[in-house]
């Protein structure tokens, strides 16, 4: 496909469960970003990869959150021991270059509900 894809689109987890969210960026895009968007809020930065290197993880809210992009393409955001406050839409975005001035292409998001 031509765009950023994410799976699953919806995930319901019981509190305490681990979840893994997948992002397939646009082929060839160097940069990959994860955001968390709560209802009625703007996306909040979580972490950033340039190829396989995680250059910024300052937005990860706790050590329960972990992201990887081992081969510089597909990325996975893992949340361990989910809590109710983790309920949100998790957006992935990619951009063509590592240079800071490029637009970001967003995927459709994964809506996580923790019960």
């Amino acid at each position: 496909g031509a765009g950023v894809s994410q799976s699953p689109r919806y995930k319901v987890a019981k509190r305490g469960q681990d979840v893994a969210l997948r992002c397939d960026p646009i082929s060839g895009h160097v940069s990959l970003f994860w955001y968390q968007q709560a209802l009625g809020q703007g996306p909040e930065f979580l972490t950033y990869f340039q190829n396989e290197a995680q250059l910024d993880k300052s937005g990860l809210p706790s050590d329960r959150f972990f992201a990887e992009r081992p081969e510089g393409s597909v990325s996975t955001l893992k949340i361990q021991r989910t809590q109710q406050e983790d309920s949100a839409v998790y957006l992935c975005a990619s951009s063509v270059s590592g240079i800071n001035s490029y637009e970001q292409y967003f995927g459709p998001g994964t809506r996580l509900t923790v019960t």
Partner: protein
Amino acid sequence: GQQVMQIPQYQHVQEGEDFTTYCNSSTTLSNIQWYKQRPGGHPVFLIQLVKSGEVKKQKRLTFQFGEAKKNSSLHITATQTTDVGTYFCAGRSMNYGGATNKLIFGTGTLLAVQP
């Protein structure tokens, strides 16, 4: 930390009326981007402004970047029902080594257009 605020939070207009949303950053920005998010959708890139005082137009949309590079605005002339959605500004702050690759999204302005 850096904060980006937008006003108003919500605007309801009659079709054909004009609309403006304002974006203010607590820190100087290297550049600013604007995104539109339709209800239930994901953010879609509209434009990027880089230079102090820059003004760009896209058909009925006019974007401005303030002289101090701490504020921006989006003005829509003669709104249409297709303009419905949430408009986010997103800024990159300056740091010691130059601009970062982290986008800080504003709080967003939800535009409703009544036909």
